[in-house]
């Protein structure tokens, strides 16, 4: 369902992504791990075209886009196929939780307002925020804000939800409630690509783990393969270090 082919991204002379190829099937949970600054977030942002890749073709569902030859409407079409959960939540500061979640339905999908709000409410109830529908982001804890962030991504009707280190900015006390929501989504077979340092989550939830370093995919496989039996020396070294920390 998702196909990334020869994806490359340069910032000036610095190549952050070098020939990335991978596929993701519908309903698959893919976790991307690797050291900081190796292009994990850039890769995720390219999938949503928040970064414009230098080369390569990205296909998500019916939308496909070639980095070197595309129009503005191709970008919008691709973005509609995915939604994004940001490290710093990035909720719309001028909108309530309910309005944040309903926004894509109203503006992008032209759902009638009342219907959009009621859908948004259902989703917020699902992530445990029934009490906070009319709260503004500034009135919510980090964990609550991130759950609204996930609810907003769920509402956007994309084929895949992209998570960019969704728990990295959270105080430790809020991490579990956010991971619980993500686990619930995984259980429902929502296609997800997650960049995270939460190794335990990767182990438990991922169908496939991708290890990235220096702009390449070094190794990928089941959590079992990557964490217990990695083939590549660099994977081995990273996994050993990462598991020791957690």
């Amino acid at each position, binding site marked *: 369902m998702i196909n990334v082919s020869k994806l490359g991204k340069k910032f000036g002379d610095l190549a952050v992504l070098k020939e990335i190829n991978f596929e993701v099937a519908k309903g698959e949970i893919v976790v991307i791990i690797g050291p900081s600054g190796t292009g994990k977030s850039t890769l995720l942002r390219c999938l949503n*075209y*928040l970064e414009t890749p230098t080369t390569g073709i990205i296909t998500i569902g019916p939308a496909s886009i070639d980095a070197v030859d595309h129009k503005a409407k191709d970008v919008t079409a691709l*973005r*509609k196929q995915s*939604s994004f959960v940001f490290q710093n939540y*990035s909720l719309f500061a*001028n909108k309530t939780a309910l309005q944040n979640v309903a926004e894509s339905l109203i503006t992008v999908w032209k759902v009638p307002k009342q219907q959009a709000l009621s859908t948004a409410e259902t989703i917020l109830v699902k992530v445990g925020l029934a009490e906070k529908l009319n709260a503004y*982001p*500034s009135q919510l804890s980090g964990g609550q804000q991130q759950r609204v962030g996930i609810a907003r991504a769920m509402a956007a009707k994309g084929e895949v939800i992209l998570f960019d280190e969704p728990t990295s900015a959270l105080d430790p006390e809020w991490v579990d409630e956010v991971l619980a929501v993500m686990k619930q989504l995984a259980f429902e077979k929502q296609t997800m690509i997650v960049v995270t340092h939460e190794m335990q989550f990767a182990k438990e939830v991922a169908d496939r783990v991708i290890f990235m370093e220096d702009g390449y995919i070094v190794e990928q496989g089941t959590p079992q393969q990557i964490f217990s039996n990695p083939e590549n020396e660099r994977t081995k070294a990273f996994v050993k270090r990462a598991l020791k920390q957690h």
Partner: protein
Amino acid sequence: MQSSFDLQYIIELMPILLKYLGVTMEMALWGFLFALILALGLALVRVFKIAFIQHLASLYISFFRGTPLLVQLFLLYYGFPQFMPIFVGMDAFTAAIIGLSLHFSAYMAESIRAAILGIDKSQMEACLSIGMTRLQAMKRVILPQASRVATPSLMNYFIDMIKSTSLAFTLGVAEIMAKAQMEASSSFKFFESFLAVAVIYWVVVIFFTRIQHLLEYRLNKAY
């Protein structure tokens, strides 16, 4: 000539002057409305860096910030009709409103632009990530937030504009300042007349400062 302060004169003059406050406020309100529309357009052209027009916008802002309002008003009202026939029939009141809006839009455009650029980049990204277009993002998320940031300085310009309408008397608009000048010339009570008009401007500005605070309170609800 030495004369004693005549409070009675001021009290009698006030209602006469206040009859002309309507003209002053009409110029200020229309001027501000047009300035706001122009400024928003200019700011968006510069924020989106629209090819070619953005250079025109920069030139426009540079000119209207770089020359005195009085000079602009004279150019518009006394100068242009000599070259462009469409300006011949223009009355002074209209010219004053056009002049004020052109002048203030240049300043306000910069305030609005700064407010837009001050909104965290992640807000735009969040809009794009759920499939919104840049224009939709502007309208529904960025501008509402920027308006909160820009309100204090825009209200400042509005207050400045109220006071700047007094320059319209040089074009012959019968507004509050013109009336004060006329009354002063006939009574020779310059101090009392201009003090009276100063007090009226001051009270009006205090009133709008209150409105500004109420507006800011409302806009800060989400924060």
